[in-house]
C-alpha cells in the first residue's frame, strides 16, 4: 500500500460549500477504490505566486491517501476535467509526518510557530 500526498488548488471564487463537496467527492472516490484517507487539510485561501488562469488566490486542499496507484489515476482523470480546479499534484512518500502543520489557519499558526521554535 503506497502513501500519497495529494494536493489540489481550487479557483479563487469557490464558495466554502463548493469546497466541502469537492472534498466529499474526492474522498468518496478514494473510498470506492478501496483506498484510505489518513488526513485531509484545508490550507485555505493562499496567494498564488503567479497568475494561474487569471486567478490571484487559490483554495488549497491537501489529502494524505494510502492505497495503490489505481486510485491516483482515477483521481487525476476526474481532476483533469473538473473546471474549478487549477492545479493538482501527487507525491509518493515513504512515510507521513502528520504532526507538523505548515499551513494551519492563522490563529493556531502563531502558536504552532511558537511551539516549533521552542523545540527547534
Amino acid at each position, binding site marked *: 500500500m503506497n502513501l500519497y500526498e495529494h494536493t489540489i488548488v481550487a479557483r479563487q471564487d469557490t464558495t466554502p460549500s463548493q469546497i466541502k463537496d469537492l472534498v466529499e467527492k474526492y474522498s468518496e472516490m478514494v473510498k470506492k477504490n478501496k483506498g484510505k484517507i489518513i488526513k485531509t487539510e484545508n490550507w485555505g485561501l493562499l496567494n*498564488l505566486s503567479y497568475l494561474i488562469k487569471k486567478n490571484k488566490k487559490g483554495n488549497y486542499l491537501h489529502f494524505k491517501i494510502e492505497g495503490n496507484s489505481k486510485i491516483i489515476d482515477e483521481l487525476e482523470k476526474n481532476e483533469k476535467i473538473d473546471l474549478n480546479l487549477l492545479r493538482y*499534484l501527487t507525491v509518493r512518500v515513504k512515510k507521513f509526518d502528520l504532526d507538523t502543520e505548515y499551513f494551519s489557519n492563522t490563529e493556531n499558526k502563531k502558536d504552532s510557530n511558537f511551539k516549533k521554535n521552542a523545540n527547534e
Partner: protein
Amino acid sequence: MNRKKFKSSKKKGKQSNFAKLSIFQPSKYKFKRKCPLSGKGAPVVDYKNIKLLRRYVSENGKILASRITSVSLKKQRELSISIKRARNLALI
C-alpha cells in the same frame, strides 16, 4: 612520460577551484560552515515547508547554488526537487 604531466595539471586544477570559491565567501568563514540542513535538529526539507525553501531561493525565485549556501549535495538535490514542486503549486 605524460603521466607525470597529467598528475601536475590535476593538482593545479584543484587550486584554481579553491581560488574561485574564496571569491564568494570570506575563506575562513566558508570552510568551517557545515551543511545547515543535515545536522541533528535540522528542519525537514519538504515542498510544503516554504518558510525554509524561501531561504534557499534568490529574490527573483532562482535556486541558489550549493557552493554559495554551503548545503551538502544530498540535501541540495532534495531541496531543488521540493522547490520545483512548490513552484508547480505556485507556493513559491
